């Protein structure tokens, strides 16, 4: 097992991508603090990990609240004595069109996706400095690398996550703390139910993916295990695309050729 000596916090781990990542880290031996604003979901995921022989605790956290974040860090330390790995997965999307987006709506998304990532990274990095290092993995998005129609607020927050990752990597390298991001393509979860739930839309999105299928939360586990493990001990500041080739270019000929 590649993460036998690791202790990870995964935020947003109550469902969707965070759940897939938490399970993946636990499978490789990491002890996992499954943290989510929906406590019941976190409990179910932690129980599932324990039932398959892994180590996990469930924690309620609101990543936008510094006190709540500190509580999560303290509870993880109380349970597992250290924190070696952080996955900032908690996130929200806004589907309100640009001209109807209020300042409050914009801030709601930035608060969770960007400010939340900052708050958790800062609180956990303080522990990692004392522990002599660690690995922080931020879940960005394809929307950190290119725009998406009527997802202005979301893309802005995820673009912020990407450059936050790079700047933090440069800043925390001296403490042997590595900071990397992943940029997933569309994955069917609660967040995307509104868009991918429409079969016509889903088929059109799938046709634009070179590997011909949408991603799954399990697809994200491998790269997170890699970033969490010492195999990537010289990797920091990177953003890994994990999108079936979506960002690489046009999957289909834009104009039918003879």
């Amino acid at each position, binding site marked *: 097992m590649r993460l036998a000596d690791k202790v990870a916090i995964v935020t947003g781990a109550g469902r969707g991508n965070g759940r897939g990542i938490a399970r993946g880290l636990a499978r490789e031996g990491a002890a996992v603090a499954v943290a989510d604003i929906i406590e019941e979901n976190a409990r179910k995921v932690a129980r599932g990990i324990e039932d398959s022989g892994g180590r996990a605790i469930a924690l309620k956290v609101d990543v936008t609240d510094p006190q709540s974040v500190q509580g999560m860090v303290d509870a993880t330390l109380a349970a597992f004595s250290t924190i070696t790995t952080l996955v900032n997965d908690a996130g929200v999307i806004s589907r309100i069109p640009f001209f109807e987006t209020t300042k409050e709506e914009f801030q709601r998304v930035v608060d969770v996706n960007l400010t939340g990532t900052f708050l958790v990274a800062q609180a956990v990095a303080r522990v990692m400095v004392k522990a002599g290092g660690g690995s922080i993995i931020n879940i960005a998005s394809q929307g950190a690398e290119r725009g998406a129609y009527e997802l202005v607020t979301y893309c802005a927050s995820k673009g912020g996550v990407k450059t936050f990752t790079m700047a933090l*990597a440069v800043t925390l390298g001296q403490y042997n703390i*590595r900071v990397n991001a992943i940029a997933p393509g569309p994955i069917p979860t609660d967040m995307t139910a509104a868009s991918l739930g429409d079969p016509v839309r889903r088929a059109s999105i799938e046709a634009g993916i*070179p590997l011909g299928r949408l991603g799954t939360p399990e697809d994200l586990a*491998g790269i997170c295990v890699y970033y969490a493990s010492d195999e990537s001990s010289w990797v920091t*500041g990177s953003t890994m*695309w994990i999108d079936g080739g979506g960002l*690489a270019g046009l999957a289909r000929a834009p104009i039918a050729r003879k």
Partner: protein
Amino acid sequence: MRLKDKAALVTGATAGLGQSIAEAFAREGAAVLVTGRDAARGEAVVEGIRSSGGRARFRRLDVTAEEEVEAAVAATVDEWGRLDVVVNNAGYYGPASMRPLAELPVAEWDRVIQVNLRGPFLVCRAAIPAMIRQGGGAIVSIASIRAIHCSHNLPAYTASKAALIQMTKSIALDYGAQNIRANAILPGVHDTPGGQQSYTDREEYLRRIASLTPLGRIGHPSGIAYAAVFLASDEAAYITGATLVVDGGRIAGEYRPHRSGPSTRRA
């Protein structure tokens, strides 16, 4: 074992990063065709792999020679019945090519492009049909951080590595439907025989690299080997057309602690 039952071909595998990749692949269960131009070194790499219980063979391969490339691909399929992974590692940035563009001899430009771009083209061109026949495969190309973050006196090298990335993406788009994945690793400065050509005082060189690198040390070839294992393995099944930077944080941003002092001292 993460590459169990897979057969792999690694170019330029007789030393440096390529050797490390070949050894890691064999440890993870792959059968490896170790290729390169130096038979004595190649046989030694194979001997090392076999003595630790791995499967490997050496075959002479200059990636600029079209027939040799095709024969090497055929030899892998003959030997192990398949070809699952190709690593385009052979590369050239020789001292003679390290100068500004107007001073670069045309023959040097041609040489760099031949090895770094035309070589991987030939290898992929020969390997892809074999991969399609067996239902898929993975291509891992070793580019460089210099493909996206330029440096002085490297016009041919940076151009060749940038082109290699775009060729990799092109393969990802064109062969995704056949379940062939293609990705690139962008190494930063690693301690290899190739890198050692660029200094005389080793201690001073290592100090200088460390001072420029957020993680404070030069790269070890094993880091590239682990990255290649990951991208070649089924754990990366949904990753294609992507790049993985392995550089200690060098190109993530400006790193000047010697100028501004560590800003986060009060952690």
